[in-house]
């Protein structure tokens, strides 16, 4: 089955009793034990709607096992606390989502886990690894500056050393990038974003090809209980059916907008991997099917950025991304506010930097709104 067919069909359990073409929404906290079945319970993540969403995500990510959690952060904390132990060291690439950054700097030390942040090139990543390094954790494209990590090179470095490779694949979605293929061990998503796609649910996804990791997560999920309820699992399944179509349009609109912004006199820099001027352009072409729906750009001053946000009419000024509607974010004060000012400035996440999650509206309408807002 091709991706667009998988998005619609993979995992669906037709209702055998009634013939309904969708999997029924099974909202039961107690499930009768049938002789031939396993013990089913929502927290065990094995009820009907969980099975479907896990199977569909696994199919889209070319994975063997999948798990859905109550938020992206629940998936990330599951990775840290489910796989690491006292004395372990993690290498993180710079420019992570602010919530991830906060969890790392505020909590890991307490559990005796040490970490380093490094630039996104393989050499820097390799140099940051030591004898205790157990995990390399990357975001690619990164948030908000769209830096691209060479996934195959990182996996090739880590594998012989027994280091686990983990990627936050939220920005690319499984339609554009399947990191298990170049050898990553674990892929996570904030499913709140492109997977959900309608800005109306909150969830996280983990997929892997390793039975051991799959079982470890399953155990952890069961123990900590950050499960996604059947209603939201059902809604997520509905969303995934149009993921392929939505991503195509997000990408097409984003490339057009990035090109337009590049020529705008009041925009100094545009960060979008689809632009030939982007340093990760060639690498993205190699490891992704398209360039995605996220872009960032720098305007004249923090005051100008605020004025743009105030003047927006069609585009919402809101934290989040990946919805059908275009959203703009001021990363320095929203998504990345948890990162200390000095560090933020070093990374280039200043208050003149705006991030745009390009929606599926008519691209001319989005550009018209940007044009009037930029002044």
């Amino acid at each position, binding site marked *: 089955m091709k991706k667009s067919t998988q998005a619609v069909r993979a995992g669906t359990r037709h209702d055998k009793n009634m*013939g309904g073409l*969708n999997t029924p929404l099974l909202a039961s906290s107690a499930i009768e034990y049938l002789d031939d079945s396993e013990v089913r319970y929502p927290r065990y993540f094995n009820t009907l709607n969980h099975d479907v969403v896990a199977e569909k995500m696994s199919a889209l990510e070319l994975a063997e096992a999948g798990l859905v959690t109550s938020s992206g952060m629940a998936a990330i904390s599951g990775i840290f606390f489910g796989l690491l132990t006292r004395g372990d060291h993690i290498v993180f690439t710079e420019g992570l989502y602010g919530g991830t950054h906060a969890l790392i700097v505020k909590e890991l030390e307490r559990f005796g886990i040490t970490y380093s942040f490094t630039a996104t090139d393989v050499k820097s990543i390799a140099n940051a690894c030591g004898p205790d390094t157990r995990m390399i954790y990357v975001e690619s494209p990164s948030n908000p500056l769209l830096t691209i990590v060479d996934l195959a090179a990182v996996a090739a470095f880590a594998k012989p050393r027994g280091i686990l490779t983990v990627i936050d694949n939220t920005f690319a979605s499984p339609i554009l990038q399947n990191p298990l293929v170049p050898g990553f061990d674990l892929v996570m998503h904030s499913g709140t974003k492109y997977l959900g796609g*309608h800005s109306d649910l909150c969830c996280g996804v983990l997929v892997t090809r390793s039975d051991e990791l799959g079982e470890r997560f399953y155990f952890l999920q069961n123990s900590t209980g950050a499960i996604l309820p059947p209603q939201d699992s059902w809604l997520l399944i509905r969303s995934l059916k149009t993921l392929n179509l939505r991503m195509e349009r997000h990408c097409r609109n984003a490339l057009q907008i990035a090109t337009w912004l590049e020529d705008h006199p009041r925009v100094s820099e545009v960060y979008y991997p689809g632009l030939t001027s982007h340093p990760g352009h060639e690498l993205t072409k190699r490891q992704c099917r398209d360039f995605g729906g996220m872009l960032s750009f720098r305007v004249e001053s923090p005051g100008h950025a605020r004025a743009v946000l105030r003047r927006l009419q069609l585009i919402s000024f809101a934290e989040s991304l990946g919805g*059908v509607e275009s959203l703009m974010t001021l990363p320095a004060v929203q998504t990345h506010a948890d990162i200390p000012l000095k560090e933020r400035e070093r990374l280039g996440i200043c208050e003149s930097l705006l991030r745009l999650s390009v929606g599926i509206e008519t691209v001319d309408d989005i550009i018209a709104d940007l044009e009037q807002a930029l002044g």
Partner: protein
Amino acid sequence: MSDNNYRPATILVHQGRDRDPATGASAIPIYQASTYHHQAGEAGEYDYARCGNPSRDQVEEAIALLEGGVRGFAFASGMAATGSALSLLKSGDHLLASNDLYGGSWRYLTGVLPQQGIKVDLIDTTDPAKVEAAITPQTRALFLETPSNPLFQITDLRAMVAIAKQHNLLTLLDNTFMTPLLQRPLDLGIDIAIHSGTKFLGGHSDLLAGLVTTADPQLAKRIKYFQNSFGAVLAPFDCFLLARGIKTLKLRLEAAQKNARIFAERLLEHPAVGQVIYPGLKDFPGKEEHFSQASGPGAIISFELKSEDQVNALLARVKLPIIAPSLGGVETILTHCWSMSHAAIPASDKRKMGIHPTLLRISVGIEDVEDLWEDFTTALA
């Protein structure tokens, strides 16, 4: 959203309201309430959920924006929408309707309306002269489908509007097959557009809904009265799902239509297939009329297999399509019109209409067309 001149893809995403005024939430809340507080004994904007509620307003505004109506009305099903719109007629009135209609509409027009003392004649609306000839002093309305279901007969909407104006008739059109993205009947002068929102607008085969809209404020007032009095309204949760479905309508419809064009061309070449009826084909008989009033062929194809045995074999062996009545979902749906969508119509009438047991209708979904074709040809091998 502050500008009504946005283009269709933008209107679909943002609709009439795109953020909750109370909280700024990016999706309109599901107002799961049956009644509303009357502050100090005074009714506010909303008083009782049947009369109106913010969740329903969202989809009602959306269909009005998309069709160019003054307001929209959401119902519990397409038939509830059709029935409520036809409540504009009264005992003693005469209704003329297309003779190739959706089976549910056929049942309503021939079974329910006569009980209310409304006389109905089903005629060939593809010929304006026949419509003109069928008009009596009691004729009050024309009920149309174009393209018709399942035979894709094309009725010239401008000609119907001209006749209606001359004879002071109300015009109603079931626009389900086309959606407002491909055909905007109110722009052509049709009084009332009706949709089964269950189909393309909802798009995920997981809800039932009906929508009605009109550009005439007086008609809107009367439909509002019937909607509230009959009470076949769409529930808040389904309004949420319908509004959510509408957000991706353009992407779904374009992808499905692209697939349908390819599928129809290939059906033409297949040895087991007889006639293929699809407005996107070169020799489609109503091509000129259809494209004078619609901007695309849609995503539904009807076709004949050469024998009933082949129909049975196909229905038994095909794997990807859901075999069911209905259409317009993300998944491909294959319908045996004789026993499913048009089961309500007696066999002899079906034959007269041109619906034979070898006729199949396929609502092409958004799956990869190569997967669909492979499955189809394997089943027919």
